[in-house]
C-alpha cells in the first residue's frame, strides 16, 4: 500500500485532534469535573496497599454475641446490607458454631471452650478462588492485592459463584434490597435485585487509608495486613500462634485465619 501525502495529512490531523482532546480532559480532571475510573485505583498518598491482604481473627478474644454485634453492625451499616429475615437473607459478616464453621475439622471430644464459642464468618478472599473461576462474565474477579471483588453492574445473577463458593460467603438479592436498609449510608452504593454480593475487605476504606470496618470495630481482636510481606505484623502473629483456615484441603487457600 502506498502512503500518499493526502493519507499522511489525514492521519496527522486525527492524531492532533486526539491529543487536543486528551489535553482537554486532563484539564477537566484538574478542575475535578471528571475522574476517570483508574484514578480511584492508582495508589494515592493515603491508599493502603499490599501484595496480598489477609486477616487474623483471635477467636479467644470474643466471648459472646455481644462481642461480635458491633463488628457486624459496622460492616452492614457501612455497606448498606439489607436486613432480610428468612432463608433468602443477605449477609456479609456473621457468626456460626465451630462445627458449622470448620466442617472439615470434626473433632471428637472437642474442648468445651471451642465447642461453645461462635466464629466470625466472611468471604475468605481465597488466593485461588473458585467463584472467580466459575463466573461467566468476570463480574467477580481477583485484584492484584488479593481481594476478591464484585462488579454488581456486570453480574447477570446466574449464581454459579454461590454454587462454587465452599464457604457460603455469597448472598443473592432475591428481591429489591433497598426497602430493607434501615439507615442508608449515602457514601456506599446500594444494590438492585438479581445480583450477588459479599464482603469486599472494605476496598473503599483501604483506598482512603482506613482499615476495614470490622477490623476497626474489633478494637484489636482482628488484625488485618499484608500476607505477602514477611515482616508485616500479621505474618508475625501467624508465626507465633497456631491458626486454622476453613476447609484448607480444597486448595482454595483462604486469606482469613483463626487463632483458636
Amino acid at each position, binding site marked *: 500500500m502506498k502512503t500518499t501525502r493526502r493519507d499522511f495529512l489525514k492521519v496527522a490531523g486525527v492524531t492532533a485532534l486526539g491529543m487536543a482532546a486528551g489535553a482537554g480532559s486532563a484539564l477537566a480532571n484538574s478542575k475535578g469535573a471528571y475522574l476517570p475510573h483508574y484514578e480511584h485505583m492508582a495508589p494515592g498518598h493515603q491508599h493502603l496497599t499490599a501484595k496480598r491482604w489477609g486477616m487474623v481473627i483471635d477467636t479467644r478474644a470474643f466471648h459472646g454475641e455481644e462481642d461480635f454485634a458491633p463488628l457486624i453492625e459496622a460492616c452492614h451499616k457501612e455497606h448498606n446490607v439489607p436486613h432480610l429475615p428468612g432463608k*433468602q437473607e443477605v449477609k456479609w459478616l456473621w457468626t456460626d458454631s465451630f462445627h458449622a464453621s470448620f466442617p472439615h475439622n470434626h473433632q471428637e471430644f472437642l474442648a468445651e471452650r471451642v465447642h461453645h464459642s461462635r466464629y466470625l464468618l466472611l468471604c475468605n478472599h481465597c488466593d485461588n478462588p473458585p467463584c472467580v473461576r466459575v*463466573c461467566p462474565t468476570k463480574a467477580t474477579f481477583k485484584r492484584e492485592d488479593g481481594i476478591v471483588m464484585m462488579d454488581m453492574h456486570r*453480574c447477570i445473577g*446466574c449464581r454459579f459463584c454461590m*454454587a462454587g463458593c465452599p464457604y457460603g460467603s455469597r448472598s*443473592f438479592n*432475591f*428481591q429489591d434490597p433497598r426497602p430493607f436498609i434501615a439507615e442508608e449510608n449515602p457514601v456506599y452504593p446500594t444494590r438492585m435485585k438479581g445480583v450477588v454480593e459479599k464482603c469486599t475487605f472494605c476496598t473503599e476504606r483501604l483506598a482512603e487509608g482506613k482499615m476495614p470496618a470490622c477490623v476497626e470495630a474489633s478494637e484489636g481482636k482482628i488484625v488485618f495486613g499484608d500476607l505477602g510481606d514477611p515482616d508485616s505484623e500479621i505474618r508475625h502473629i501467624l508465626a507465633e500462634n497456631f491458626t486454622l483456615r476453613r*476447609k484448607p484441603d480444597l486448595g482454595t487457600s483462604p486469606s482469613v485465619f483463626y487463632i483458636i
Partner: protein
Amino acid sequence: MLEKALNGNKYYWWWIGLLLACIAVGAYNYVLQFQHGLQLTNMSRDVSWGFYVAQLTYLVGVAASGVMLVLPYYLHDYKKFGNLVVFGEFMAIGAIIMCLLFVIVDLGQPKRLMNVVLHPTPNSVLFWDMIVLNGYMFLNIIVGWASLEAQKKGVPYAKWVKILAIVSVPFAFSIHTVTAFLYAGIPARHFWLTAIMAARFLASAFCAGPAIMLLLLFIVEKVAKFELGEYAVKMLARIITYAMIFNVFFFGLELFTAFYSQIPGHMHSIVYLFAGLEDPATGQHLGVMVPYFWTAAFLALLSLALLIPSTTRNCKPVLIFALLILIAATWIDKGMGLVVAGFIPNMFEGVTEYMPSSTELFISLGIYAIGALVVTVLWKIAVSVKKAAA
C-alpha cells in the same frame, strides 16, 4: 415448507391452542417474576439453584434424541433410521430452546444476558455451555431443514449436509459433557465432585432422549398414520435399554464409592435423598425428597426389568409403559435429585430444603409448552413432507 404447519385438522388446532394457553400462563408468571425478582421462587441462600436448573440439566439430555439417530445413520450408514433422523434432529431443537429458556428465567438480571458474550470468559464452564448448546442447536436446524428440503425436492441431500451432521455428533457429546462439568468441577459439593458425572450425563441422555422421542413417534404413528418401520423401533428400544443399563450401573458406582469408603461428605447427599438428614442446628429430621427418590429408584429398576428381556421389550404396550417409567425415573434422578441434593447439606453442614414454588412450576409449564409447540410444528412439517414424498 413452513406453510405445512398451517394445515391441520381440528385436533391439531386444539392442541396448538392448548399449548398457547400454557405459554400465556407461563408468560404471565414470568412477568411477575421479572418485576418482583426471584423471591417468588423457593430458592434460597443455601439452595441457590432449583427447578429451573434441574430442567436445564434434564433437557440437555433430551437433546440427545438427535445424535442417537444421526450417529447410526450418517456414520454407520444404518439406513433403517433414514425416515426418522429428522424427527430426532427437530426434537433436539425443541429441547435446546427449552434449555436456553430455562437458563434465562433463572437469571437474576436477564437484561444483562449478553454480558456472557460481551465479556467472554473461557475459564467459566457456563461460557462453554453457551457455545456448545447454541452450536448444537444451529447444526440441527441447518441439517434437519436441509435434508428435509432435499427430500421434498426428491433429490439426495448435499454433501455438506452430511459433513455438518457428522460435526454435530461431537457437539452432541459435548453438550452433555460440558453441562456435567458445570457440576463436576466445583470443589466443595461432594455429590457433584465425581469424575463419572459426564459419563452419567451421557448414559442418562442416551436413554431419556430417545425414550421421549419414541413415545412421541408412537403418537405421530397413530394420529398421522405415519409408518415408523418395525426395525427402527426395535433398534431404538435396544439403544435405550443399553443406555439405561449404563445409567443405573454408573449410579451404583457412586453408591459403592460413597458407602464403602464411609467418607461422610461422600455419603451425606445420597443419605439425604434416600433417608433424609438431621439439621444439626435445629435437630429436625428433614427429607422432603425421600419419597420421590425411592420412586425414581424403583421405577428405574422396574424399567430395566421390562426392557432387558426381548419378549417384554418387543411387546408394544409393555414397551410404552417401560418408557414412561424410565422417563419419570431419569427426570427425578437427573433433575431435582442431582441439582438440589448437591446443595444439601449446605456449606455449613446444615440442611435447608427446597421444593419449587407455584411461580417456578407455572413458568416451567410455559417453557415446556414452547418446546412442545416447536416440536409439534417442526414434526408436522416433517410428516407432511415425508408423506408427500412417499
